[in-house]
């Protein structure tokens, strides 16, 4: 059993203060800062409720929780502009909540109910909200990296000053698709920002055992792409470095690779007993030293913005909201069997615009389902 040593090899003493004075962090009002804190807490409480729902058998299949990584989604998404878009892999509950999707529609989706954001047809890995510029939610590791380049391509093609944030895990950096995407992004000057959420483990395989060369983001150099490492536990740093990358994308149409160091407290997914590749002490160590919510809480307390009452209130409300979403999901109906055979083709879903003839689906539901 090759477990990590108790000391987190990527931990540095978190330099929380050095980014607080950057305009992107200094110039936002207090309630915006409280909101950042609140978003992280909401994600955590939602995820905890998901764990319970999964164990109760209400959520099936794969469920990848974001507990411990909240600052990455909240930090990166909080600095996006009106023409910026995001796309991610499958550990997306945090991103979905951070762009503003509701707990109800996410929980209902995981319960497979028709009130889910994907009408129960996608599940935990396939949330999407085009109106909020969130393009999913993708299950094949690395498969979303060319899509991210494509979204950036479209923004540039249409003359929009925007960027696409494309998230991937430390395990995904070894997929060929990532390199094809980096090459295209650099060659064609695409405003895409690849965000490697490095939580140190690709399922059960540590970075040391899966990836040659470190840091991972340095691979971008081979494609003449700017890169940087980010301490994910430092929300202000995440915001600052993402803003830099966005500027580079908007102004010079150049891509960036950001490697954000973060950590997950639970296994890769709900199926991972989390016993074969790290020790409890390793997790505990990180929780105590580098928990992003705890660290930001401390900062805001020091800034005089947060106090125990507000913290308690936020926590309580988050738990309530999560609990209500589980109730909502539980009470919602399942989709009708006819759902299996729609939303396959745009043309079939829009018969008034249909020009094709012939048979496109080759069997049907039995009469009594």
């Amino acid at each position, binding site marked *: 059993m090759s477990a990590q040593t108790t000391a987190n090899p990527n931990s540095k003493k978190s330099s929380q203060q050095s980014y607080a004075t950057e305009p992107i962090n200094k110039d936002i009002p207090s309630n915006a800062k409280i909101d950042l804190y609140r978003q992280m807490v909401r994600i955590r409480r939602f995820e905890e409720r998901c764990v319970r729902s999964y164990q*109760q*058998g209400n959520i099936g299949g794969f469920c990848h929780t974001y507990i411990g990584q909240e600052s990455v989604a909240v930090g990166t998404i909080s600095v996006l502009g009106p023409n910026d878009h995001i796309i991610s892999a499958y550990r997306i509950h945090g991103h979905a909540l951070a762009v503003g999707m509701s707990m109800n529609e996410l929980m209902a989706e995981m319960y497979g109910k028709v009130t889910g954001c994907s009408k129960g047809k996608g599940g935990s890995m396939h949330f999407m909200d085009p109106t909020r510029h969130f393009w999913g939610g993708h299950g094949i590791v690395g498969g979303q990296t060319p899509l991210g380049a494509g979204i950036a391509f479209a923004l540039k093609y249409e003359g929009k000053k925007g960027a696409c944030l494309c998230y991937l895990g430390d395990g995904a950096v070894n997929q060929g698709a990532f390199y094809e995407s980096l090459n295209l992004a650099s060659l064609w000057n695409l405003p895409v920002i690849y965000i490697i959420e490095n939580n140190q483990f690709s399922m059960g395989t540590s970075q040391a055992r899966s990836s040659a060369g470190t840091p991972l983001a340095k691979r971008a150099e081979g494609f003449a792409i700017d890169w940087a490492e980010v301490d994910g536990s430092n929300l202000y740093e995440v915001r600052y470095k993402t803003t830099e990358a966005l500027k580079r994308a908007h102004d010079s149409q150049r891509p960036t690779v950001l490697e954000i160091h973060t950590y997950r407290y639970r296994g890769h997914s709900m199926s991972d*007993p989390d016993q074969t590749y790290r020790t409890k002490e390793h997790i505990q160590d990180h929780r105590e030293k580098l928990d992003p919510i705890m660290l930001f809480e401390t900062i805001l307390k020091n800034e005089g913005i947060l106090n125990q009452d507000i913290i308690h209130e936020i926590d309580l409300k988050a738990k309530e909201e999560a609990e209500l979403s589980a109730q909502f999901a539980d009470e919602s109906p399942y989709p009708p069997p006819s759902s299996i055979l729609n939303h396959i083709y745009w043309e079939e879903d829009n018969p008034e615009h249909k020009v094709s003839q012939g048979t496109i689906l080759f069997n049907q539901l039995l009469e009594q389902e």
Partner: protein
Amino acid sequence: MATIIDMPKLSDTMTVGTLVNWLKKEGDAVSPGDMLAEVETDKATMELENFDEGILLKQYVKIGEQVPIGAPIAAIGKKGETAPEAPVSNAKKTSKDLTNNEEIKLVEATSNKSITSSNNRIKASPLAKKIAASHGFSLQSLLGTGPGGRIVKADVLSALNKEASTTLPSINYGELIAKDEKIPVSNIRRTIAAHLVQSKTQIPHFYLDIEIDASPLIELRAALNKSSGEHIKLTVNDFILKASTEALRRVPKINCSWHGDTIQQHGNIHLAFGVAIDDGLVTPVIRNANTKSLRQISTEAKTLVEKARNKKLSPNEMSGHTFTVTNLGMFGINNFFGIINPPDAGILSVGATIKKPIVDMHGNITIGHRMNIGFSGDHRVIDGATGATFLVALKEIIETPALMFI
């Protein structure tokens, strides 16, 4: 009211969990985040996380006990509350079935296997079957000209055309049914008439009837026709002719002629068979049928039929017979008794093979293919017992057709 804690789903493939250790005792205070117990799943031993505030009132599962997901493990409530005793599980079904009859749906409509055994298959294309069915036409006696003896559309149509040529024209009430006229009698008709009158009036006919299981014959015919490719097309009648010769071999007394003072026992079988032609019936003769194989009989029969239809039969080919077989099966007649063709001592009359309910050897009612064969015998030469022996032999041979070849 106490909260019941159920065995949770701790891995995506878990169905049961074994409680290996309690980490909290009954009466202990518990908070969210505490671990209540250790549970062994299909993948690993995991800790069971608590989500409720209160006192662990009751443990429902003993150490070492295995329970399914959703089964109650513990009750948590307020201090002093009584926990329910082994309550009914409030677990939801873990597999989300939409309907109860999903499994039943997976079984498609039960195969409508034909009740007949595969031995009795008549090979016909779906189109041929459809055309035949729509005309109420039986495929039984058709010769298939498709690969492997398959009956195809052309075969059905040609059979229908033959039928059509003998059907009546459409009825127009008020009209004559036919032209009122004197039709001169042809020579052939004259000759036939004379023979028949002589036969009917001078030969004391007696009649025997037997029902034969035609399934083995049908099966053998199909197999032989398939294996010999395009070259040989054996008809049912060919088999009957061959079987008759073998039956006569066993009961030669049938192969005789009455000559008043003597009865001529014939050493060879010169087998006549009926062929319907325009003017009436002719009976060409296969000489020395007792020396010929089924194939030879078949080939010769075909040639003779061709000649008969073209009126090219020589007198030699029409005379000298010792036994006659006549067949109205293809016309749909179930059974009949022909008039003896002098100087024969008997005539075999073959009917159609029909499907009918029969009782099989196990005493069950099933579908059988049955053929009726009638025998008209000259009672001067043959008595009932001999005739019966002959028919029984014929039956045996037809039902065990291999006997035709040994």
